[in-house]
C-alpha cells in the first residue's frame, strides 16, 4: 500500500463496506421480505410455494375448525372476492375470531393451503392494521357481505 494514500484507501474501504452492505441487504430482501397479499391478490399473482408472505383479510364466518389435538385450527380468510384456506398451530390472539380482520404470516404449501406460523395480534385494537383496512375498503363486494352478516347480528 502506498502510504501517502492511506486516507483515500480508508475512504474507499468505507464506500466498499457500505455498498457491500447495501448489496447484501438487497439480495436478502429479495428472498426474505414478506409481501402483503389478500386472497384475491394471492390467486392472481400465483405466490410461489414456500415463499414467506403475509395474508390479510377477514376470517370467514363459521369457518374456524379446531382439530382433535386442541391446538391446531383451520379457517378460511376472505376478502369478499376470493378465499384461502389457512392452517395454524398455536395459541391464537384474543382478537382472532370469525368475521374479524386478520393478518397471518406464513407460506403457501403445494396444495394451495396457507400454513401460518404466526397470527398477528395488535396491542392497540382501536384500529385495524391499515393494510387490512385499506384492502377491505378497496373490495367492492364488502357491502353485500356486510349485509348478510348484519342480518345475523
Amino acid at each position, binding site marked *: 500500500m502506498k502510504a501517502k494514500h492511506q486516507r*483515500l484507501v480508508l475512504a474507499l474501504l468505507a464506500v466498499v463496506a457500505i455498498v457491500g452492505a447495501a448489496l447484501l441487504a438487497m439480495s436478502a430482501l429479495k428472498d426474505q421480505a414478506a409481501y402483503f397479499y389478500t386472497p384475491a391478490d394471492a390467486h392472481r399473482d400465483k405466490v410461489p410455494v414456500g415463499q414467506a408472505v403475509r395474508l390479510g383479510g377477514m376470517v370467514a364466518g363459521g369457518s374456524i375448525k379446531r382439530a382433535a389435538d386442541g391446538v391446531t385450527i383451520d379457517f378460511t380468510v376472505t376478502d369478499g372476492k376470493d378465499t384461502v384456506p389457512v392452517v395454524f398451530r398455536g395459541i391464537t390472539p384474543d382478537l382472532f375470531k370469525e368475521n374479524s380482520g386478520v393478518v397471518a404470516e406464513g407460506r403457501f404449501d403445494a396444495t394451495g393451503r396457507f400454513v401460518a406460523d404466526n397470527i398477528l395480534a395488535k396491542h392497540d385494537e382501536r384500529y385495524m392494521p391499515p393494510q387490512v383496512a385499506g384492502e377491505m375498503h378497496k373490495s367492492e363486494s364488502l357491502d353485500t357481505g356486510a349485509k348478510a352478516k348484519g342480518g345475523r347480528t
Partner: protein
Amino acid sequence: MSADVPRSDAAKRGLRLILWAPLVLFLIFLAMFASGLIRPGSRDIPSRMVGKPLPGFALPEGAPGHPPLADAAFRQGQPRLLNVFASWCVPCAAEAPQLLQLARAGVPIDAIAIRDRPQDVAGFLAKWGDPYAAIGSDVDSSVQIAMGSAGVPESFVIDGKGIIRHQHIGAIEPEDVPAILAAVRNAR
C-alpha cells in the same frame, strides 16, 4: 504528514467526491421519510361507504336510560348522525363537546358503543356529556366492521332513507363542525 506531500490530482478528486457521498445518501433517505410523511393517503382509509345503504343491524341497549338501536331508525325520513365510539377511547372524550354542540344545533345523534359495558358507557356520558338519543352496544365490533369503520371514533351522516352521505374518521374537532352541519343539511 500528507499536508506537505503533494498528492496526485486524481486521488484528491476521488477523495473529495467520496466526502460528499454521506450527504447524498442522507438526502436520499430523507426524501423517503418525507414521502412517508406527506402521503397521508396511505393512512387515511378512503371511504367506500358514502352513497351506500347502511347495513342491517339490531343492537341491544348500550347504556341504561337509552333505547337500543337498529338500522330502521335511519329510514324515518330525517337525516341523523351516527357516532361510533367507546368509553375506553380517549379521542372520543375529546370530541364530546363538539357532539354536544351538534346536538344543540338540532342534529339527532345516535351512537354505537364498541366493545363496551353499559355501566362504563353510563360513566362516560355522566363525565363528558350525553348528546345521544339511542345507543346500541356492539360487543364484538361486527356492525362496526360491516359499516366499513376502521376505528373509533367515527361518525356517519345518514339521510332519511338509510343511505350513508358522509363519513368522518377520527375525532370531530371544533373546525369540523360546520362541514358536518352542512352534510346534515344536504342530506335532507
